[in-house]
């Protein structure tokens, strides 16, 4: 059975593109489009990896990540943060809160696939 990626992102066309890419690459993909109940979606789906956008309606990706890392079972769950802001302080904050990797939009498909593969099989 293939490993599952949970994509938490609110832009429909980015969801569709990443969903297509990751499925073609052999991963099982679930998607979720808002921040406020993203933790429920994580608990429900039990993904092997999360692709998490920062700017989400209801709750930011930073807050979701911070809450996720307080859970004993999810302290080591791989999380790839996606953000439209590439400032050092955003990267530092994501790392400080426990992000496994960090990618700045716009990114290339090859870069995304390469990072996901590396995170799934470290």
């Amino acid at each position, binding site marked *: 059975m293939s490993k599952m990626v949970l994509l938490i992102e609110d832009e429909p066309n980015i969801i569709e*593109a990443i969903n297509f890419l990751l499925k073609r690459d052999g991963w099982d993909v679930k998607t979720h489009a808002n921040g406020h109940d993203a933790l429920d979606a994580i608990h429900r789906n039990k993904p092997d990896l999360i692709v998490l956008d920062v700017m989400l309606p209801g709750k930011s990706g930073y807050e979701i990540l911070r809450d996720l890392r307080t859970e004993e079972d999810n302290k080591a769950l791989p999380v790839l943060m996606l953000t*439209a802001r590439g400032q050092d302080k955003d990267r530092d904050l994501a790392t400080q809160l426990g992000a496994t990797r960090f990618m700045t939009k*716009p990114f290339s498909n090859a870069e995304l696939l390469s990072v996901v593969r590396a995170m799934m099989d470290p």
Partner: protein
Amino acid sequence: MSERKTSAGVRIRQRRRSVGLRQAELASRAGISASYLNLIEHDRRRIGGKLLTKIADVLGVQATFLSEGVQATKINHIRELATPLAHEEAVQQVEDLATRFPMWVDFILNQERQKRVLEAQVNALTERLSHDPRLSASLHDVLSTVTAIRSMSAILSDTENIEPEWQTRFIRNMNEESLRLSDTAGALVQFLETDAKNASGLLSPQEEVENFLETSGFDFPFLENQNDHFEKELHALLDTAGLSPSGIWLLKSYFVQAREDIRKLPLAVAQSFVSASGLDPVGLAQMAGVDVPTAMRRLATLPMKQKSEACGLLICDAGGNFLFHRPIEGFRVLRYASACPLLPIFDALHFPMRPIRRVLAQNTSDVTIFDTISFAQATESSANKEQPVVKSYMFIRALNKSGANAKVQRLGPSCALCSVKDCDSRRELSLVEEGF
């Protein structure tokens, strides 16, 4: 008379006259009798220490300017500027420089002033770029759209044997995203161009007005005159203010309100109260029979020559949006980031017509303490009598350490810039404190 031979008494008298103060007024604010000030001004009493500092504060100059003259003040200033940068020997040569090359000294000091103005502009622009919600949202939209287009176009070009259904979907999506990108980029350019046309650069209409008032020192004699030429003089001033249409509209509203405040609280009444009781808006309101916001606005916008200390004023509407800000040094108010909800100006909205006094300090490391009085009031709306206009006011004075016996509430300019831990009102992580 050469400056070296000019006495402190003469300098006090010259400065007092240049700012338009009578001897009795200056004496009263400095806490001495007019006859004693007269003796000082005629060099029949020596002056120094706290009294010199007090008089210098009232006259809006440094004490060294009164005691030693403008040349000594300049030398001190240059020496302060040079100390962290220059070699000790060079610092010792400052006096020689000032004596031999006075025009170069003026040039250096002018450069320093310009540097401060530029620093303030850089800070304002940095804050704007970091926190302006319109700019931030536009850039986020652009990057998100570009990400979607880039990803979908790469899928179309790189994927072999892509199903026609997916091909159609991605082409349709790319068309949608390109239209969105076109709209967002157009709106962004329009936003930046509009700001570029503002006389003061990247400023909101409120900032334009506040800068204009601050640059003028809030000193508009035509307001105080209360004569029939108000409309004519107002329009002449608005025509030459160099503000955007929104800025002119706001500035006009400010002057109409200020004229009404002055009618209720003429300069003589305000001055006399300030001389006797200091900057106490609630006391002034009681004494003059006006509402507290009128007294706050009047005190906060009195020119510095009419009061012995600076004060600030913040006004917000019922939605918590800041409408007006007269800054006071050391107390930061961010216009583009969400303000701290613990500011008493917001508490006052829940307790209208009740003055709330609170002593504040921004962040755990700041040493400046501020005495604030907040007061909210509803006024009848001419457009909708069933829905009054609610505004809240926060009057701010700096306290010296000895005056800070009250309990100090510590808060930040915004959550991101706040170092206070264990705050139930925190909305986002702090960027200035380790451990978050």
